[in-house]
């Protein structure tokens, strides 16, 4: 199964788009916001946690439909489904590869983009922590959505529609953790909820996603 993770990462690096696309999109969102809401740093600083979380979420969404589509087209998915490794493991590795190529770079880039939005200095730590806790859930939920729509010709828009409401709790707790942390309020609850969502999705969604893939390959 590690072989699958390594292959997917190698493919992402060689195809070029893997790491760059999500990051570039994140940068674009964050750069555009001040043009839309005006340059006052007081306003930017107040909305920065939300913008950064929404930007990271959208950047995640952007690359979801490629999780299974390429493997479906070239027949790899059929072969993986008949291979001796469990399909649940395949799904988990796919989600892991997606996180390493999008969630992780987004988490690392977020403080730099926080500067552009005059993020409160107290918030940087919470921002990185909340993204590190929350983005694995985004990848796993997205992998589930990609598994549901894997055989469909125009699955991209549908995938976004399916995944969007599933992302809401993660977004709320993630952004809330940063806001409360920056304001010096207690933010253990949202952080714990965020960690709980991530653990629960990692534990349960691979089964749902593998079931969806089996149905789609029939």
């Amino acid at each position, binding site marked *: 199964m590690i072989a699958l993770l390594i292959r997917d990462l190698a493919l992402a690096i060689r195809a070029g788009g893997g790491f760059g696309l999500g990051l570039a999109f994140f940068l674009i969102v964050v750069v555009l916001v001040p043009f839309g809401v005006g340059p006052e740093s007081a306003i930017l600083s107040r909305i920065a946690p939300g913008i950064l979380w929404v930007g990271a979420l959208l950047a995640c969404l952007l690359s979801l439909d490629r999780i299974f589509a390429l493997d479906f087209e070239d027949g790899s998915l059929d072969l993986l489904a008949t291979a001796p490794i469990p399909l649940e493991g395949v799904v988990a590795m796919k989600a892991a590869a997606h996180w390493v190529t999008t969630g992780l770079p987004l988490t690392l880039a977020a403080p730099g983009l926080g500067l552009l939005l005059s993020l409160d200095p107290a918030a940087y730590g919470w921002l990185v922590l909340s993204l590190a806790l929350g983005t694995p859930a985004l990848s796993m939920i997205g992998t589930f959505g990609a598994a549901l729509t894997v055989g469909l010709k125009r*699955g991209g828009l*549908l995938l976004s*529609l*399916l995944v*969007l*409401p599933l992302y809401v709790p993660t977004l*709320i707790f993630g952004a809330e953790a940063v806001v409360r942390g920056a304001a010096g309020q207690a933010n253990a609850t949202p952080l714990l909820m965020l960690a709980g969502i991530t653990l629960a999705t990692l534990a349960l969604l691979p089964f*749902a996603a593998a079931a969806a893939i089996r149905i789609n390959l029939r």
Partner: protein
Amino acid sequence: MSLWEYANPKKFMQTSQAVLPAIWGLTALSMVVGLVWGFFLTPEAENFGSTVKIIYLHVPAAMMAINAWVMMLVASLIWLVRRHHVSALAARAAAPVGLTMTVIALVTGAIWGEPMWGTYWAWDPRLTSFLILFLFYLGYIALWEAIENPDAAADLTSVLCIVGSVFALLSRYAVNFWNQGLHQGATLSMDKQENIANVFWFPLLVCMGAFILLFVALVLERTRTEIRARRIKALIARERMA
């Protein structure tokens, strides 16, 4: 005879045909009685003025918006466990009804909110939850429409319904945590009937009954349509093979 026999398409078609006229009749009767009673024959409430009359649409619609999703969840589980086609098709048939109920609850809520809170839309926990429910309905219906193979569509939408239910509950909690809100508490819900005067409560009860009947009638009617559509598909495929 076991209850599961009604999950047989033929048995379902016979039974539903026999009971549907009565259900439609009862629906029309209770809807007219409830709404006329509520609209014409109830006084104004102290804090709400005449806007209290919106309750006879808002509360039953909100109740059915949630109950329709619960019914879809149960039907999806039955399909996944016992593979009864009628169950899967009933879930499909219920989704647009649930979506309409959600829209009614949202729209009447917004119209009611304007005079009461001074705004059509507030990111109040209950309103937000219904907006999220609206998105779930849209996604569910879109997934049904997108998949050609009917059994695969039934399987995948069932999985989505189950996973979606868990996330819907989680969203409810998250949204509550995120904003405490302006909405009336449980004064307007069924479990706290002592908080609402009988003069409003009785017509409301009739309206809730009417909405339940309407839901049952629509789901039976639409499930019959789905079963027929399935049969058309099978017969045409057979013609092509012959």
